[in-house]
């Protein structure tokens, strides 16, 4: 049940983000400082999330050679192809291969 509630809250919040200027604040402008800060929310959260996903329940970050190799390969392919499909493919293949080798 709390999973469902959490999903509803995120859904409502997302709708408010998307609607607030279109529905109510059309004549207002976002302050420059907020716009600049918003630009860095995405990269900062993604960087934090990647580490959080590799953290075990005891608070230890589980990152080894296979993970780092896969990130480097995935990042490189994402940069070159701009494609999620190829990024995923390259990252997972490198992860499996390196894991089998080390």
């Amino acid at each position, binding site marked *: 049940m709390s999973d469902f509630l959490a999903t*509803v809250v995120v859904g409502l919040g997302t709708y408010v983000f998307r609607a607030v200027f279109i529905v109510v604040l059309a004549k207002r402008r976002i302050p420059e400082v907020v716009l600049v800060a918003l*630009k860095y929310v995405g990269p900062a959260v993604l960087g934090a*999330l990647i580490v959080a996903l590799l953290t075990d329940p005891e608070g230890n970050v589980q990152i080894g050679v296979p993970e780092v190799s896969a990130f480097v390969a995935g990042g490189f392919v994402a940069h070159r192809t701009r494609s999620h499909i190829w990024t995923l493919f390259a990252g997972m293949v490198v992860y499996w291969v390196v894991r089998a080798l080390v």
Partner: protein
Amino acid sequence: MSVDRAAARQGVIDALPLFVPAIPFALVIGLAITESGMNPFVGWSGAWLIFGGAAQLTLVTLLGTGVAVAAAVGTALVVNARHLMYSAALAPTFQSQPRWFRWLGPYLLIDQLFALTTVRAPDEDPDSFRSYYLAAGATFWALWLTVVAFGLLLGPVVPEGWNLEFAIPILFIGLLVLGIEHWPEMVAALAGAGVTYLAAGLPNRTGLLVGAFFGMIAGFAAERLRRE
């Protein structure tokens, strides 16, 4: 007020190629729902309740790893905060639209739809804009709900030993790389990752929020340096 059929048809045609990159994303969300152990229907409901891949994937994976619910919700919302910018950018175009569309339109406003509609002429006929927007948005919506469901069916079939949950951080790496245009964004990402690493031992995984916060500050500071 009427439907512009040509604009609607164009909306569907433009939406299809943009949906292709979202397919692996939807599949990974389906797998993540299976992995997290949450009720599959509740997990799938996120596809239409949130209708945003990165936030849904964040929420599902964090709930599955035993993060405090408030921290999971907070992080997922922060991930979607960029939609404030989309809302502000499209607000002038929506001024000439009927009230029902000003309420309904934002629900569909995902990254891809923003990319498609923000490049259209600002003085476009309101009926054409609305027809295009709704047709493209409905196309994304229907495909998204279908592919997430498909990922849920696929989840239990994939062998455990493949460690397919590792696809999630790889997808985030991809999103990150595609989002970096200047070095301050790189600074934000590295600071976010580094501080989260140092704060990994904090209770309820609040290190994630601490890391994200410091990452944002670092990016902001780097931008100031770049401008000077």
